[in-house]
């Protein structure tokens, strides 16, 4: 079943067009990667799906329902959660309060504080600290946990690996497997191609706001990705 589908999705920042006619579909339960160079439109795509950038209603379909014109908080309530680029934890809230903020979507499901602490045991000991006191990796875990607290059907992850040590990135991607095992559909935006392809079943490569390549990750042709990535 198709959970997310964009058709002719275009997005603008003022007069500047950042996305051109993007058609992407994501099946229920799968993990899909979106790769591309800086400025290719990956983050814009996620923000358009999450409602932070408005588009025409039919351009974004979630579970068959047009959501392109909905506001971000309405979309969270429908079951799309975002782990924003750079974590964006709330600095004056403790770690636990950051996690609890995810419950404002008022969605029922498998995720609660206890489950998030089981997934990221290190956060439990740090739960009363203010968010800025955490290391980058711990903050990323808290940001993922905060998104999970809204019990999403679709989890959008923007640059999970940004600025983190390789060993931490590996830990976080392992947890992503556990999240996916709950039946959550995941869309990963990454610049780290290998990491993204290892974790996903299909990928889309963006280039200058257009979809350059869409393929299964199994037996992918590296030369084809390079060509799509750099527009060669």
């Amino acid at each position, binding site marked *: 079943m198709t959970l997310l589908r964009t058709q002719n999705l275009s997005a603008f920042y003022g007069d500047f067009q950042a996305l051109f006619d993007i058609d992407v579909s994501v099946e229920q339960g799968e993990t899909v990667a979106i790769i591309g160079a800086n400025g290719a439109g990956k983050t814009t795509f996620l923000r358009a799906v*999450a409602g*932070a950038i408005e588009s025409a209603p039919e351009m974004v379909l979630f579970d068959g329902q047009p959501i392109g014109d909905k*506001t*971000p*908080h309405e979309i*969270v*309530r429908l079951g799309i959660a*975002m782990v*924003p680029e750079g974590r*964006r934890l*709330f*600095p*004056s*809230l403790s770690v636990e*309060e950051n996690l*609890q*903020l*995810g*419950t*404002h*979507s*008022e969605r029922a499901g498998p995720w609660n504080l206890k489950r998030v602490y089981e997934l990221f045991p290190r956060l439990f000991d740090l739960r009363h600290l203010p968010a800025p006191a955490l290391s980058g990796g711990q903050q990323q875990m808290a940001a993922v946990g*905060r*998104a999970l607290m*809204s019990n999403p059907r679709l989890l959008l992850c923007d640059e999970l690996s940004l600025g983190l040590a390789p060993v931490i990135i590996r830990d976080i991607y392992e947890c992503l497997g556990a999240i996916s095992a709950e039946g959550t559909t995941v869309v990963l935006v990454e610049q780290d191609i290998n990491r993204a392809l290892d974790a996903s079943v299909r990928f889309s490569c963006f280039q200058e706001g257009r979809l350059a390549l869409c393929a299964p990750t199994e037996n992918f042709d590296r030369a084809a990705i390079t060509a799509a990535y750099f527009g060669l």
Partner: protein
Amino acid sequence: MNWINILIQGGLLGGFYALFAIGLSMSFGIMRLVNIAHGDLIVLAAYVALVVTENTGLDPFLSLIIVVPLMFVLGYALQRGLLNFTLSGGLLPPLLVTFGISIIIQNGLLQAFGAYDHRLQEGAIETASMQLPGGLSVGLYPLLVFAVAVLAIAGLQLLFYRTRLGRAFRAVSDDADTAELMGIDNRKLFALALGIAMVFTAIAGALFGVRTIFSPSAGPIRLILAFEAVIIGGLGNMWGTLIGGVALGLAQALGAAVNPTWQILAGHLAFLVILIIRPSGLFPRTRD
């Protein structure tokens, strides 16, 4: 002993200024709204209390049972129906719109009540005082106002740090865009915030109307006092606002002790001095 008396009077006066400032501090802290109409809303609340007391026979304190919900609804509607639309275009649109609201309130009150001075009558407590050892005498009413200010701020701190709504307020204050991405309806939350701010504005208005005479043009000076208390204390810090109010009250009392015409001036000068020494206030908390 005379000086101790002066310091006590000044400190208690600070409770008043803090009460004026709570609503202003909330709307700036949560939605970065600089509400120029804040002083006029205090005066409006005093007039609403006047109408209620005259028509129901309730005394001004009891009239709050009616005034508080009315002002809450007014705040909610004002934010939802008007001010929310000004918040995406930078600092200037809300300034201009609330400046306009200020003028509308002043002239509306002038039209309805005339330019006369009014007062709310609360009875014996207005002039009652308490004798302390050493020849000190403390007015019960200023003491009551100070206690109300402390309780109001303590209550708000509980709301901010112990409730789900308060958590949402703090998150929106940190980063409104991300809060929206986490499922918070900012527009509704902002409306609630101004509604709650107006609860404190209503209390401030009624207590103000009992303490002193008021007229439709009394708002702007309350606004300035409230601003000074907020800025001396540091943006986003409610206890700081109380301390800011006390600092202002003390400066005024000391100024008046030297020469009665210096009272207001001394307060403003103290504000300027603090602004020069610590531009972000004594205990700043809010990030911009």
